[in-house]
């Protein structure tokens, strides 16, 4: 339940700035370089594919089973999880990610489950 499992190869590595609408609001980013207007088109494109109906991790609609459950033929067991931040993912996709980093991959807030269901 900590960041320690994430590969910390080089903490001082260069920072990608202005990539994602969701990244700019993180605490980490506050001390990083400001947004560059030049890349606005990228930001616009980014928000297109993380609309709220699609699981941003596996890119399947949250109402359908995730890629893992589709592969393992467990469609019935696949449920949706909503965080306190109101982002939703497949519970399967999210539970794998929080093992590495207990933050919402879209808004970087600490991940707290609000609700699990269909």
């Amino acid at each position, binding site marked *: 339940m900590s960041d320690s499992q994430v590969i910390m190869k080089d903490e001082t590595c260069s920072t990608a700035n202005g990539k994602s609408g969701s990244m700019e609001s993180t605490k*980490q980013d506050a001390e990083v370089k400001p947004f560059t207007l030049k890349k606005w088109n990228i930001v616009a494109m980014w928000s297109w594919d993380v609309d709220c109906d699609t699981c941003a991790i596996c890119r399947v609609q949250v109402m359908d089973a995730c890629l893992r459950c589709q592969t393992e033929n467990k469609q019935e067991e696949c449920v949706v999880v909503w965080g306190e931040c109101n982002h939703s993912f497949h519970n399967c996709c999210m539970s794998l990610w929080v093992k590495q980093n207990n933050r919402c991959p879209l808004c970087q807030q600490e991940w707290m489950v609000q609700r699990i269901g269909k």
Partner: protein
Amino acid sequence: MSTPARRRLMRDFRKLQEDPPAGVSGAPSENNIMIWNAVIFGPADTPFEDGTFKLMIEFTEEYPNKPPNVRFISKMFHPNVYADGGICLDILQNRWSPTYDVSAILTSIQSLLDEPNPNSPANSQAAQLYQENRREYEKKVAAICEQSWQNL
């Protein structure tokens, strides 16, 4: 054999074809979807303009929970690119997010070209020239841009 990682990569590929970002392209290698070949065109109005740089991206079955390994195959002269082509970029290491896909990776690397971070040098000569002798830096960059054409 179809696994979640492979299916995700098929989706990445479809998106890259349907909604191609400017100045980058990529596709899985013919017989292995886990290894991609990509090309980044140097952004206009930068010293990298007119360069055509080849990269190789290697994914594992843990994708997208783990970032892929990305490196330049074309010769590169950049403060944050190692001699073996490896790239020092936070989102490919400790700030990776499973919501990234191939187009996000490639567009991030493309913007790194003109926005190096000289404080974390992977190529100390490039970092030093970038800070102290911009003219000489741009000359070296122009040389690798030209080379990138010869090796296409």
